[in-house]
């Protein structure tokens, strides 16, 4: 599953912005792991000033990585990823 949001946000340092956002997402969605050796989701951000685009993924299956290209869900094999067993993800 995934959500895409556009939020009004400015950032001077995209690395810091990304790290902060990962912490927020992992705290709000208990059990969601977005980095590390065996993630069960990932986060992508386009840091456009005042219009950050955020994609948050929580994988539905073991070994099936999910992403979106042109609003189409793309599933590829990956030995790294795990299934997310938590509640439906929220912003």
């Amino acid at each position, binding site marked *: 599953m995934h959500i895409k949001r556009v939020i009004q946000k400015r950032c001077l340092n995209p*690395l810091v912005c990304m790290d902060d956002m990962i912490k927020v997402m992992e705290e709000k969605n208990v059990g969601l792991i977005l980095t590390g050796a065996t993630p069960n989701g990932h986060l992508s951000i386009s840091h456009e000033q005042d219009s950050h685009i955020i994609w948050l993924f929580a994988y539905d299956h073991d070994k099936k990585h999910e*992403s979106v290209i042109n609003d189409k869900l793309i599933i590829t094999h990956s030995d790294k990823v795990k299934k997310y067993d938590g509640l439906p993800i929220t912003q």
Partner: protein
Amino acid sequence: MGFGGGGSAGMTAHVHNNVPLQGGPLDFANDTIASLSAGSVTYSDGAALQELVKPAVPAGEVLTFPAAATAPSWQAAGGVSLTQHVVNLGSSFSSSSSSFVDITGLTLTASGNSGAIWTTVNLVWEQNGTGTFSYQFMDAGSAVGGFQSVYHDIVDEPSSNSASYLTTPATQIIKIQGKADSGNTFTIHASAASTWSTLQALEIG
């Protein structure tokens, strides 16, 4: 000399050369007239002079003589046409994905009509931990050459990396994808005065 003559016998057969009492040389330098269109050129078909008129709407045509042709003609100029595409990353992009994802903003659309496309990408990137970051070209939806996997041992300090590839099939959409191989997050920095994340392509017609 004039052709009018004066005698009743009319003009005698003659040629145009320097022999006395012949016609004398034709003066082609803005004197001799003929029933030709402006801009046309003449050639011989072996029996008589022929006129090759200029292109109706000239567009750089060149006078050529194709193989097996019996007469010259105007043809489109040969050579190579080049079309350049430049996409500078307008907004920084970050991801924690361990599999390839599109780097939003690094996409260009080529005509697909060229014979070949030379594509090059330069990324100014960094990540929040040591390990490798990989990126690749996507060509019309499929991964193609230019795959790079680069190791980063300085945390939170930008690196610059470039790759190029040449493709010959018709190509429409060229993208760059990236992934964090070592459980990190990576960031591609937007193009600015001190950074230069860009995707460029040269279509060779």
